[in-house]
Every structure is written in structure tokens, then in C-alpha cells.
């Protein structure tokens, strides 16, 4: 199943890439500041990259390589794609993981509280979450940098350091991008939670729980919130998956070398092997996340189990 899916994605991405105009060879030979390559040079590079082969041959090579775990080498720097992904994926996972953690820890209680309290708190929440989902992450990220790096000098403005080299700095460099990512995500989660909680607030079993004399908190947490989690889990699942491939803007603002900027750079440079490799990676992750979410549905609601 999963394998079939990945295979489908593989084929589609291959086709998509070759449908999109843009010549990797030409790009390799000309950056933004000019310097124009001769057609001969371009042709030579094309040959070198194997782009002169018939499409079917290229597809076959790509597919047979991918199935044996060989994703090829980057057009731009010759690095093995699997190696590049191996380097970048952990960084992205770390970033997305932290962002998700923050978003969930903030978003769920926030939305729940807004639903429960109502009144002005709810209105303020509406406004704040609107800003949260509307604020482009590059704007928010820039503001963070302006404040914490340039004004207060508390955190480095951006970059990346391996954990092994300097754990402290590694952590410092992770904070701001994670927060920048988490803001929109938390707002999304808060909104979803709020609406789901409102649905559950008036169920009969809540009354039952209250009749037992359980504390308000327990009633709310176990009899309202717990039952509201289904759409929240969906949202988180999709959010995590989407983040994996779309942290590019944050990565740009903070010069964080993650998977997503690798992907976007590769797309802009039409670095086919890298694009394909990253897409496959994200597809595999996505499928896994969806499987986890599907399992969670059953955990959250026993009626779903068959």
C-alpha cells in the first residue's frame, strides 16, 4: 500500500519535473549576476547530467535507482541525494517537532479555554488567532530577529550549528524559527480546538461527570476536551506533514539549512535528483503521519474501531 503510494508519487514527480520548463544545465552555468554560458557549454553539461537521454531511459534509471535506495546525485554539488537528505532531515524534524510541540502545548489549551470561558477572552482569542494565521511567517520571523537579536541581543540572528559542536548555540538557533513556525500553527490548532470543544460542551455525559462531583478541570479535560480531539488530531497531523515541506520561508529568514529550503532551492535550480529525493522523503513521512493519525482516531474514539 504505502510502497505503491510512494511509487505513484515518484512517477508523478518525475513527470511533473520534466513538464515544468527550465533547464538545469543552463541554470548551473548562470547565476543571477549574469555571465552567460555558451550553448556548447550548456550541451556539455546536459550530457554530463544525463539529460540528453530519452525520457523513458531517464525514468527507468531514476526508478530502478530509487528502488534500490540510490536517489542519485545532486546536479549542483554532486553530493549523494540520500546524504544531503540524511543531513537535512534531522534538522527539519527537530525544527518541526519543536514547533509542533509549542503549537500543541499552546494551541490546545488556548482554544479550549476560549470555548469554555467565552466572553471577552473568546473575542480576544478570535482576534489573536486571526493575526496568528494571517501573519506571514517571514514577517513574524523578521520581527523576532529585530527584537531578540538586533535590539536585545539575546539570540543569534540565524544560522545553524550542529548539536555535537555546540549544544547551547544549537538550541539558541532553534528557538526563534520554531516559535515563528508555531505561531500560525498554534492559532490553527486553537481555532479547531475551540470549535470542537463548543460542540462537546453540551453533551449529556458532561452532565454525568458533573453529577459525580468531579472538579471542573477534570470534567473539562476528560469529558469535553478528550472528546473534542478528533479534528484537532487531524489538524495537527496535516500541519506537521505540511510543515515538513513548507518551512522554507522560516528557513530563509533564519538561514536554517533544512529540508524545505533544499527542496525549494532544488526546484529553482531544477536539480531533479534532489527534488525527487526530497519529495519521496516527504511522501514517506506524510504517509507515516497519516497512518499514525488514523490509528489515533481509533484510540480517541473506540466506536471507530472495527
Amino acid at each position, binding site marked *: 500500500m504505502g510502497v505503491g503510494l510512494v511509487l505513484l508519487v515518484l512517477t508523478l514527480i518525475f513527470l511533473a519535473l520534466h513538464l515544468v520548463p527550465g533547464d538545469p544545465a543552463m541554470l548551473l552555468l548562470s547565476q543571477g549576476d549574469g555571465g552567460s554560458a555558451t550553448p556548447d557549454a550548456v550541451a556539455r553539461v546536459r550530457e554530463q547530467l544525463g539529460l540528453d537521454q530519452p525520457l523513458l531511459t531517464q525514468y527507468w534509471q531514476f526508478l530502478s535507482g530509487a528502488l534500490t535506495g540510490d536517489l542519485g546525485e545532486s546536479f549542483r554539488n554532486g553530493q549523494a541525494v540520500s546524504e544531503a537528505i540524511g543531513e537535512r532531515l534531522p534538522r527539519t524534524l527537530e525544527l518541526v517537532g519543536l514547533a509542533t510541540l509549542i503549537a500543541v502545548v499552546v494551541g490546545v489549551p488556548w482554544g479550549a479555554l476560549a470555548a469554555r470561558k467565552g466572553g471577552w477572552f473568546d473575542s480576544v482569542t478570535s482576534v489573536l488567532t486571526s493575526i496568528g494565521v494571517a501573519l506571514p511567517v517571514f514577517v513574524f520571523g523578521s520581527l523576532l530577529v529585530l527584537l531578540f537579536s538586533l535590539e536585545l541581543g539575546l539570540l543569534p540572528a540565524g544560522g545553524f550549528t550542529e548539536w555535537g559542536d555546540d549544544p547551547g548555540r544549537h538550541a539558541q538557533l532553534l528557538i526563534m524559527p520554531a516559535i515563528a513556525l508555531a505561531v500560525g500553527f498554534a492559532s490553527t490548532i486553537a481555532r479547531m480546538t475551540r470549535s470542537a470543544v463548543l460542540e462537546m460542551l453540551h453533551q449529556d*455525559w458532561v452532565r*454525568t461527570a*458533573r*453529577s*459525580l*462531583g468531579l472538579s471542573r478541570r477534570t470534567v473539562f479535560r476528560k469529558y469535553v476536551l478528550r472528546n473534542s480531539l478528533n479534528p484537532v488530531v487531524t489538524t495537527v497531523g496535516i500541519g506537521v506533514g505540511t510543515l515538513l515541506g513548507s518551512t522554507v520561508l522560516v528557513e530563509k529568514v533564519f538561514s536554517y539549512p533544512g529540508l524545505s529550503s533544499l527542496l525549494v532551492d532544488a526546484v529553482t535550480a531544477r536539480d531533479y535528483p534532489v527534488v525527487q529525493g526530497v519529495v519521496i522523503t516527504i511522501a514517506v513521512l506524510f504517509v507515516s503521519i497519516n497512518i499514525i493519525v488514523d490509528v489515533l482516531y481509533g484510540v480517541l474514539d*473506540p466506536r471507530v*474501531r472495527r
Partner: protein
Amino acid sequence: MLEIDDVSVEFGGGKKWKPVTHGISFSVAPGETVALVGESGSGKSVTAMAILDLLPANARRTGSIRLDGEELVGASEKRLRQVRGCDVAVIFQEPMTALNPVYTIGHHLSEAIRSHRDVSKAEAAEKAVDLLRQVHMPSPEEKVKHYPHQLSGGQRQRAMIAMAMASEPRLLIADEPTTALDVTVQAEILDLVRELQQRTGMGVLIITHDMGVVADVSDRVVVMRDGRVVETAPSRELFARPQHDYTTALLEAVPRLGSGTTSSAVADRSAPPVLDLEGVAIEYPGSWRKSGFRAGHDLDISVAPGEIVGLVGESGSGKSTIGRLAMGLLPVAAGRMEVGGRDVSAGSRADLVHIRSQVSMVFQDPASSLDPRRTIGQSITDPLRWTRKLTSTKACRARAQELLDDVRLPKEWVDRYPHELSGGQRQRVGIARAMATNPRLLVADEPTSALDVSVQAAVLDLFSELQREHGFSCLFITHDLSVVEQLATSVVVLQHGRVVEQGPTARVLNDPQEDYTRRLIAAAPVPDPDLQAQRRAQRLAG
């Protein structure tokens, strides 16, 4: 101990408040059992809920409610919380929606046990099994691991009762606690309550429609109608010399087992049966960890045209399951099922369409079987629209009003939502919906359990009338043997998913062949306090 003084409950919100009860007053002394009876929708439940302020958000209470002299109206939420579950426990009317679908029964019980007591998880788990055993839950060690939807209606109700008992409260508010229980279990549960009462001096406020139960357990009776108390009297007196006209009417409407009234329905045995089960087995699918559960074995049941078959039996014996099978909601695991002469065991699409054109159903749990987002008027006539019997909105509305009227609900309520009704009112909506389609076979799963006897009588009359008119057949699931006697042409007695006895009503009820049937008949309470006291003594002795 509990004094209720001039309590009114109002619904609404904003500036418009509409009272549904008016100046209710009564009291409950320690060790006393007060029965709250009366018309469906008269405000029994809301009064009971008002005591602990468990009313819906759009309701408010006025008046004075004192527990041991302490005023509860206007008490702090914190204080109320201490009272709830500890001093006062509640059994809710509709156990399906009152239990959280995502927690097991065991979890619910542990929560109840641990809410006011410092008990370890393990101890609580043990206690939970113990409680379930006390309420006669079959295989309690297993059932603690079940989720509410995996239990039968009566089993859920027993879980609910066990939760309320968990804290050994000083006052027990029981809102129709035995509606889904067969009479044997009901008797055992009532014994249990009484025993607890004698041991701890617990006061009981019980809401019920079963006059037999009233006679059995109550010391005093409060009769309500239209949101007002019409009469309050000690039970014996009330049964002997009812003062208010309504009370008199109520007592007269009580069906009595062996009273001689019999069904007017005539079975047409020459024609092929409407429903025919031959050696049918029914299975609930298991999950990947657990194997499935076989809820019916080797069932041979047949319903002839025009026949009303009473399906009685132990709670959890598979009555509803058979109903759901007949409706095509569960597959036939083994054996053969025919509906209207057509073999539908395969359960193909066409089979299902066929079934649904012939069969209609009153679900056991009215609250969960009504779409919360549709008005009751819509819910009633939706089947008509779906089957293209009625298409215009106007006609639907008119038909809905007619049907509401038939089941003694105000016509103006077509636009109400299910949650704005009382339990009995919802049940009547369910009945109206099932009748709307003029089915050939009606599966009625405890259709009158939440109705007071007078409304029940009216509904049953309607039922017989329609039956005469349209000649439909009926599989009537109930635990009220007197209703069976009155209505059914034949009876099927079920235990543990097997048919233990079946035959014409008169034969089975008057001359039961099987031990279980005998016990069942013996356990049926009679609406006479003195007689009931004797029977109880007999039963407990034997």
C-alpha cells in the same frame, strides 16, 4: 433531609424565560423513598436535575432547595461539587448519551469511585467489578473493559446505577432507573437499593412510570402534571384512595398482568410470514485484538402478517440485536432470514432496499437515534421524504403535526429540537417516525419504556388502531409483561441470545413451561403496595 420548596425551572435565555415547572414542593426524609410520578413531560426530570443544578445551560431554577437544611440554590459551584456524587448521586434517564463513548465502563466506575475518595487505581478497578456484580451485570470482569456502545440498553443502565451507588450517597436521585431492565433484573436492583437504604439510611427520590415499581419501593408518592404537583401522599394511601382526578386516571390506566385484556390483532398464518428467522446466528464483529461476540444463536422466530410478537427476556439477551437484524442493520452470521417472503440472508444491496421498504423501527434509545440537528418535525417525516412518499415541505410539515398529535405531543412543537424535549417526549417522536411510513413490519424496541401509563395507554391504543387499520405486523420488544399480554398475539422469551420458549401469549403467560419464564412472570411487580410487599417477601425467601 431534602426539602424542595416552591421550585420552578425556566428555559430560555436573554430576557425571555419560559417556566416549565411551577412551584414544586416536596421533601425526602432519610431512609425514605419518594416516588415522583406523572405525565411524560410534566417536569420530573428537570426538577430532579434542578436539585444539583445539573440543568442545561439555557435553564435556570428559582425557589429553595435545602439539603439537611443547607440551601443549594445559589450555593457556590465548589460547594455543589462537594455535594454532588458524595452526598447526592444521580442516575440519569437515558444511559446511552449519559455515558462518555470514549471511556470504558470500568473507567466510568473508577472515576465515580475516586471522585471523592482517596482510592488507588487498582482498588478502584476491583471495586468497579464488584459494583457491576452487585447490579447483576453478566461477566463483570469482561464488561468493565467494554465501551458504552458495546452494551445493551439495560447493561448501560446498570452501569449507570453502579456509578451512582459507588459513593454510597445519602440521597439517591434515580430518573427512571429501570426502564431498560427486564423484570427479574429490575427486582434485583430494587432489592439492592432497598438493602443499601436500610444499611445506610439513604434517602431515595425515584422517578418512574412503572406503578408496580412505585408500589414496590416507595414510601411516599408525588404526582406531577403539567409542571405542577397535583398530589402527594403515602403510597398505600395513594393506591387505595387517590385524591386527584389525574391520579385516579393514572392508576386506572395501569395495565395489569392477568387482567384478561388480550390482543385484538389477528395473525394471518396462511400467508407467508413477514419475518422469518431460521437457525439464525448474529455476531458483533470483534476488533483486531478481540474476537467477535455472538449475540444470538440458532434463532427460530417467525412473524406472520398481522401478528404482534412480543419479544421479552433478560436484559442483554439479544432483543435489540434481533431487532437490528430484522432491520438489516446487522448481517446474518448463519442461518436464513426472510423478509416478506424474500430471502435476505445474503444482505445484498437489493435485499437491504427490500427490507427497508417493508420494515420500520422504534429505537430503544430515543436520544441517540434522533439527529440532533434536525427538528423533530423533520425527523418524523424524513423517512417519507427519503422514500419519496412525500416530497413537499409543506405536506411533510402537516403530516408531522398530525403524527405529533397522534402521539400526544403538541403540534406546535414541530420546530423543536430533540434536546428540548423530555425523555418520554423524545420516545414518542421515535414512535411517530416509525409509524409514519406505514411499514409491513414494525420493530418496536421498548417503545413505551419512558412513557407514563396514561400516555402509554394512549399510544398503545393508537398502535392497536393503526394495526387494525393497516394490518402491519410487529415485533414488540419490551420488558413489561402486562403490555405483552395486552398487545401481543404470541411471545418469544429470550435468554442469553437463545429462544427459551415461544408460543401464543395466553399460553406462555398463563402456563409457562420453562423455569426462566416462570421466574420472569413472578418478578413482574404489581401496582399494589401490599401485594407487592408479600411477593417481595416470597421472592426473597424462595
